[in-house]
């Protein structure tokens, strides 16, 4: 983050920050996903207590619900998992799980939502499920605009291997064109 972002509204500030992150990681969101991300960040900006939620419980609870309650619960789980994996990936370490744990639960929640809601909203949730890794990469970049890496090299390696995150690959390469080599049984 090279300069202070001074916009008249919190919406405009989040939007500017997301634009800056997209440019920094060379990813582009379409207008729908960008808007969703802006409003997601606005909704959760003043709710730090959300990090205390247990996603496994909430997800399993959503499976017992019907109709609007189920939709609300699934959306909540998807949104939280996106925030956890994108903004607070170190939370996974404290919970003794991998970041991809939240990625899998979040993607599945959005995918299920796309199956149960009407056609117009189904397209949105389908997109969120498909673009989950891109959204996570943009949130990682947003946190890293301050200059510090969000993930340890090992976490970046795991997340790249498990999700194909381009941001993690960039972190591993350190700006060079080097690719990590996996497989411990290889001899060099």
């Amino acid at each position: 983050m090279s300069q202070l972002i001074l916009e008249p509204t919190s919406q405009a500030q989040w939007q500017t920050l997301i634009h800056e992150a997209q440019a920094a990681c060379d990813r582009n969101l379409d207008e729908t996903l960008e808007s969703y991300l802006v409003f997601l960040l606005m909704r959760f900006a003043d709710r730090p207590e959300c990090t205390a939620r247990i996603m496994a419980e909430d997800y399993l609870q959503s499976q017992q619900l019907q109709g609007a309650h189920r939709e609300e619960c699934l959306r909540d789980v998807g949104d939280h998992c996106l925030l956890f994996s994108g903004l607070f990936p170190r939370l996974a370490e404290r919970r003794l799980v991998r970041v991809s744990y939240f990625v899998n639960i979040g993607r599945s929640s959005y995918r299920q939502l796309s199956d149960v809601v009407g056609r117009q909203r189904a397209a949105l949730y389908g997109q969120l499920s498909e673009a989950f890794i891109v959204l996570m990469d943009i949130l990682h970049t947003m946190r890293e605009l301050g200059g510090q890496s969000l993930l340890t090299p090992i976490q970046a390696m795991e997340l790249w291997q498990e999700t194909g995150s381009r941001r993690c690959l960039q972190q591993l390469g350190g700006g060079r064109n080097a690719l990590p080599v996996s497989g411990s049984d290889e001899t060099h």
Partner: protein
Amino acid sequence: MNTATIDARHLLCPLPVIRTQDAVADCRPGDHLQVVCTDPGVVHDIPAWCRVHGHEVYAIERSDNEIMIGIQVGEAD
């Protein structure tokens, strides 16, 4: 009737449930699924999910550190 096996070993709940859901989506009523897991939480979570979604658990077998849950796929919910 087809039988498929899902490897959900070393996955923590609810990921085995998610794998099961994904696999059931590709099955027909009457098909059998065998889910092999290591997280003991699946003994509660998968049967609960099956109950809600109309599938039948016909076997829960434990051996060494693994748990196999046998599911007969019900009508689509």
